[in-house]
């Protein structure tokens, strides 16, 4: 092995596949994280002209969480190009139509508009549920840490765990719960 080949590190330029679980995550905050991996901003060899971005697979995009009453207030604008062709779609309507669209638009908007943006978006895969095609799943080798803890829903706690939880008091047998 020659001296120059000894330090050649092909893995530096390899494309890594990351997986990101969108469950209960704010799409606009997680877009900034996803963007970092898509553009290769997490590598010390980053350069805008250097094609060092990774592939990100988003799962559970149907389970995203928007803050406040953004589901009802946030509107997505579209114009057909014809007079009177403007339309505003509310976030919940868009989510019902296509559960991957909100996260896709959030990532798209988080990146600067240049010629590279659409090619970078090609490296983003979004799936509404947990089912991923096998040819995608076999490449995944890293998981991106979620921004927020996923809380457990009260009605999803197992029954025996609820029974064993210490109580302050027992309700009287004739007490009527409101």
């Amino acid at each position: 092995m020659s001296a120059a080949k000894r330090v050649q590190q092909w893995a530096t330029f390899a494309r890594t596949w990351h997986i990101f679980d969108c469950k209960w995550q704010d799409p606009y905050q997680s877009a900034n994280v996803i963007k970092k991996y898509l553009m290769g901003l997490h590598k010390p060899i980053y350069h805008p002209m250097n094609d060092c971005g990774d592939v990100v697979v988003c799962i559970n995009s149907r389970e995203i969480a928007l803050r406040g009453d953004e589901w009802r207030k946030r509107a997505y604008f579209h114009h057909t190009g014809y007079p009177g062709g403007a339309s505003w779609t509310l976030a919940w309507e868009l989510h019902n139509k296509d559960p991957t669209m909100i996260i896709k638009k959030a990532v798209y908007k988080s990146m600067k508009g240049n010629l590279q943006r659409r090619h970078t978006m090609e490296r983003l895969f979004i799936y509404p549920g947990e089912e991923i095609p096998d040819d995608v799943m076999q490449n995944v080798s890293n998981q991106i840490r979620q921004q927020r803890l996923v809380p457990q829903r009260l009605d999803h706690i197992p029954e025996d765990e609820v029974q064993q939880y210490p109580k302050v008091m027992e309700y009287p047998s004739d007490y009527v719960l409101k």
Partner: protein
Amino acid sequence: MVFLSVVNFIRCRGPDEIWRKRKIFKIASHFIGRRRNCYSVAVRNVHRALVYGSKARYLKKDDMKNLWDTRITAACEQHNITAYTLREGLDRANIMLDRKSLSDLASWEPRTFESLAAVAKEKLRLDGFIDTTDKNEPTGRDLDLSNIFLNGLKETK
């Protein structure tokens, strides 16, 4: 050419007009269309291009600084330390490396950069410095620094 009246001297710009224009045309040689062929259009665009060139000398430095910062931030993330903490630790440890050197080390000598991150962390731990940006103890790689000469770090700034 002989002018008998003074008025005609105003029109006359001397015999070296072609050389005066040639200087402008040479700068405009890579422009397209009338911007390189017609003097009156070319000279305006050359002036504008020169102004852009002057401004770009500063912008280029800014761009490089942003690029180095991006690279250092990326490298710091790998070692679980913020770029601010690294900078603070290295400054206190009297390791005066600029952005360019740090980003070069991050990409070409990752082990050196890892050691620098560990040194920065150790220095901040010795100083009892708490990062005010995230109100946390300095994080970073836990390398075994026991065999390394760190006596200089013990003196607080």
